[in-house]
């Protein structure tokens, strides 16, 4: 072994805390690992590639005529809605994969390294934004091919996409939390869809809420998903970054502020 002699424990400078810059750096290293894993196992991307295509086609041809008179007229309403719904659904997979990942031996090493405790989680979630970006792009492309022409222009569409990705990243902390506390990957799926279905369908994603009963409208109007959908519509269709966009961002920040510490704590407890 060509190694030099090892510096003894007492003569090293040591810190018992992790600085913010180190936390960020650790998280990016972990995100790099996540991206490599996605590249190695491209079959994991089936959901983010096929789901946007199938859902967009299905919803527009089934409901287009009934809701907006024609498929063409339904697209400006539907595409932002289906975009939000698809990408948020994708974030459930983040929790499931995290659960599977945590059972691997490599997490023992992560825990034994002098890195920020949040890094393995934040890194995994960060890498998954690549998945959200794929789902977002495909949804818009399918929309364009079907004849959707967002009036807001290209820049506004990109901004809308970034907004959706950012909010989904925030929401993925909820599912990451379930991922950490759950016993198995399949139970994560169970809990997550139970939360997700009411949240995405009881919103303005597919229809305007004024046809709903008033008590339901009340919920739909406070549902953060509705605000996100409205924000995307404003941006893509009118090029306006309005109050709903700010509300969506605020909601995202609140979710991260609550669920990131909860998740890290649960993760440490499992350690």
């Amino acid at each position, binding site marked *: 072994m060509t*190694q030099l002699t090892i510096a003894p424990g*007492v003569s090293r400078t040591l810190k018992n805390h992790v600085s913010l810059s180190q936390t960020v750096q650790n998280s990016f290293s972990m995100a*790099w690992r996540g991206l*490599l894993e996605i590249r190695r196992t491209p079959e994991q991307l089936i959901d983010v590639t096929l789901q946007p295509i199938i859902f967009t086609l299905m919803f527009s041809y089934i409901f287009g005529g009934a809701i907006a008179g024609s498929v063409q007229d339904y697209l400006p309403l539907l595409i932002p809605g289906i975009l939000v719904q698809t990408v948020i659904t994708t974030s459930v997979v983040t929790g499931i994969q995290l659960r599977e990942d945590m059972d*691997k031996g490599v997490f023992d090493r992560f825990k034994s390294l002098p890195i920020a405790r949040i890094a393995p989680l934040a890194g995994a979630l960060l890498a998954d934004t690549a998945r959200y970006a794929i789902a977002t792009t495909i949804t818009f492309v399918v929309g364009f091919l079907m004849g959707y022409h967002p009036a807001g222009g290209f820049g506004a569409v990109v901004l809308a996409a970034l907004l959706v990705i950012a909010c989904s990243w925030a929401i993925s902390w909820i599912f990451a939390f379930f991922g950490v506390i759950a016993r198995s990957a399949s139970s994560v799926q169970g809990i997550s869809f139970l939360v997700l279905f009411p949240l995405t369908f009881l919103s303005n994603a597919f229809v305007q809420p004024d046809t709903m009963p008033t008590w339901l409208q009340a919920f739909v109007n406070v549902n953060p998903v509705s605000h996100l959908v409205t924000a995307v519509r404003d941006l893509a269709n009118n090029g306006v970054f309005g109050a709903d966009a700010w509300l969506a961002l605020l909601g995202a920040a609140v979710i991260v502020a609550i669920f990131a510490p909860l998740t890290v704590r649960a993760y440490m407890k499992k350690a």
Partner: protein
Amino acid sequence: MPASPTGDWAVEAHGLVKVFGDNRAVDGVDLSVRTGTVYGVLGPNGAGKTTTIRMLATLLKPDGGEATVFGHDVRREAQIVRQLIGVTGQYASVDETLSATENLVLFSRLNGLGRAESRRKSAELLEEFGLSEAAKRPLKNFSGGMRRRLDLAASLISQPPLIFLDEPTTGLDPRTRSQMWDTIRRLVATGSTVLLTTQYLDEADQLADRIAVIDRGIVVAEGTSDELKHSVGSASLLLRLTDAASLERARHAIQDVLGVESVLSPEAGRITAPMSDPDSITDLLIRLRADGIQVAELAVQQPTLDEVFLALTGHTASDEETAGDGTTTGAASGADNGLAHEPELETAK
């Protein structure tokens, strides 16, 4: 007394306890590992070895007791402890989907090395552990031995002064095992302190300066390997004859030369006897030749883990669970070189 200023003690643990449900997996373990030595924790499956190591390596929170690594508390100063240790788990703690290089680069980056330095360090370690050719291959195609070597390489990135090895050779074939031993010896030569667990007395004997025998969550014996072996008698003789008719005469010869009562093994024609001095085997052989007794097979073997356990705890290691694929190939000492080795356990006593 914590000896942090001098760094004499790499590990000091007092009364460590870990409870899982109503199972007291570790029930008051005391360990003191002197800096620069190899310390072996020996015990059967389920004895609490891994749990003990996981607590010392900050992977598990102890439910009771105190433990320090170079004077730093594993609970209060966990982050400091993590900067001083390398951990190689029982099941390879490397990422299966990444290649060997990618694994080492990732762990280098996490250890705070720059991009270029990480690449350099990874290449260096792969070279050192004979993994350069497999560097780009995905780990799925790695053999058990290669995986362990990569795992160990990953633990050495930050050149930690203390390395935990949890059953480093379990499941490896004898050749890979001895390679692993060489690697561990070289590691110690660079100044590392090593705390390893093992199910094999032979392994502890080969590598460790001191050994703690652990059973059902407590340390039942502690000392150098010689001290431990003397507590069970240093060796045992195994003799098989070509002609079963001369068995009684052979037992007589053993009685005369070694001064001990021999035992007829269940398998016909085999005699076993405890030995205090392996050297007296020469006298016995001369006597057997003089008596015209023909020897088919003869072996002097170390006390097995089972025998150590039996002596220390009053029950065999395999009572709990089979002690792995288990028997240590009994290269006892130079005295029996060239003689047949019988690696079988003889639990019937």
